[in-house]
């Protein structure tokens, strides 16, 4: 069984990576040492919202983990108001990440908007597995594209054609032995149409993050629900009943 850490993590860095999109770095050595691509941390602030908020780990280096966020609500606005040294409570690593152990020579990473979140770690783990990495990243418009895309090939796409391919990431992406995707659920539904075997990291409301509250139900094509926090957040695209999964959270997420 994996180990779970609960740690008060001081903010050590903040940098902008797109318009209104920020990377926050926290000192959380145990989580940084053990997190895999696609896993997440559940972050709470002492005087913040009641429930923690889940964030895919964006990078992990040395004793530091990074998460990426936009100010979409009171909680994220509070996180962006943190100063260096301010402490956030981090619980993690949580969930099952991407599976890069399958026999493959190439991987395509498909991300929309904040769906960049798990991809830098996916690049790290895919390189360690000896894969050729193509990262296809899209947003509504050029200045919403994350500036930190990486890989053997990088393909950008924008809905308005202001940078890169004019159209969706799904249309822009090349085939590969493995496809990993993260973004708004409607984008992931399109991924599922093209690559039923893709591994997709879904977004849901979440309560505890540890498997007990059953709040993060993901409807499955085979019937019933399981937990994004525990069996997920990474699913085989064909296994998710996209019609029954709420297509967006109550805040706007760039695709």
């Amino acid at each position: 069984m994996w180990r779970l850490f609960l740690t008060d993590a001081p903010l050590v860095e903040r940098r902008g990576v797109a318009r209104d999109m920020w990377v926050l770095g926290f000192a959380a050595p145990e989580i940084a040492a053990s997190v895999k691509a696609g896993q997440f941390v559940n972050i709470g602030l002492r005087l913040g919202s009641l429930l923690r908020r889940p964030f895919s780990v964006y990078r992990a280096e040395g004793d530091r983990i990074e998460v990426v966020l936009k100010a979409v609500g009171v909680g994220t606005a509070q996180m962006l108001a943190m100063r260096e040294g301010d402490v956030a409570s981090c619980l993690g690593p949580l969930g099952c990440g991407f599976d890069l152990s399958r026999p493959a020579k190439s991987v395509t990473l498909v991300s929309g908007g904040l769906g960049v979140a798990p991809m830098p770690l996916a690049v790290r783990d895919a390189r360690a597995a000896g894969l050729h990495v193509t990262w296809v990243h899209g947003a509504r418009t050029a200045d919403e594209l994350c500036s930190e895309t990486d890989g053997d090939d990088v393909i950008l796409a924008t809905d308005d054609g202001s940078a890169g391919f004019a159209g969706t990431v799904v249309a822009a992406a090349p085939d590969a032995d493995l496809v990993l995707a993260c973004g708004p659920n409607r984008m992931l539904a399109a991924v599922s149409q093209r690559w039923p075997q893709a591994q997709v990291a879904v977004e849901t409301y979440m309560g505890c993050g540890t498997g007990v509250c059953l709040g993060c139900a993901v409807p499955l094509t085979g019937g019933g629900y399981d937990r994004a926090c525990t069996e997920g957040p990474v699913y085989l695209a064909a296994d998710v009943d996209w019609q029954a999964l709420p297509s967006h959270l109550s805040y706007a997420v760039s695709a």
Partner: protein
Amino acid sequence: MTSDLSVEVGGLELRGPVLAASGTFGYGTEVPLLERRALGAMVSKGIFLKPRAGTAPPRIAETPSGMLNAIGLQGPGVDGLIRDYAPKWAAWDFPVLVNINGESAAEYGELSARLDGVPGVAGFEINISCPNVEQGGMYFGNDPRAAASVTEAVRRRTKLPVWVKLTPMVSDIGIIARAVEAAGADALSAVNTFVGMSMDLNAYQPRLSFRTGGLSGPAIRPLAVHLAHQAARAVDIPVIGVGGIMRAEDALEFLVAGCRAVQVGTATFVNPNAIAEVHDGIAAFMAAKGFASLSELPRYLPRD
């Protein structure tokens, strides 16, 4: 000094007064728990005779100092519970009560009979207060005759401790409390979640697919303290206070209001160590005030 925090609650000797509330601790096996040394007892996620898929998402919505949930008692049914969880409980050093549910009094009785004698099952908490099922649930809990008939149906089928979890959605909780006491309950858990609703201003519809949900968290604590107190004044059996406990001081409010023990729920979602921290805080309070045991803690419980 070290204070004795053990308590006797409705037929069970507990090493501490802080229990895990149903639906907030799963079946106790889900996560590598950080600390369970302080757990007085665990009440399992609510179970029906048959497996249940639960409600469609979204199932939860955060509200000011609280959260709404409509999980719909997703679970494996009694066969899955007996096969997958009870054997693990049998080896644990704290008792596990099963939160039981049904669509009729006969179903509750059948469920308790199936579980009676299963190693690992130390008792029952009858759920007549779940707001998130179409049949049964809360509807038994706001009618004293229905509440009593469910309690009797279980009482007849088991010798294990029988606790009854009450709904706050009543005009006089004392009437329900007395009815289930007379029907053979050993203790009461007060209270389950309040029915609430929240609207999505983008979709112009409720934020939860079930439309309504159960409100928990610190938002309900003063309401719950009052209802637990009212229940404690109405009966002679022990009352276990539940509702929005985040810290030791919150738990102590319930104890002073007349409760024998408490359950911690939503706090565990936020902090997996909440139960241990509440327990340790109660111990520190007792020591600082010079109480040797919980029975010395003054209770505000005037009799009508």
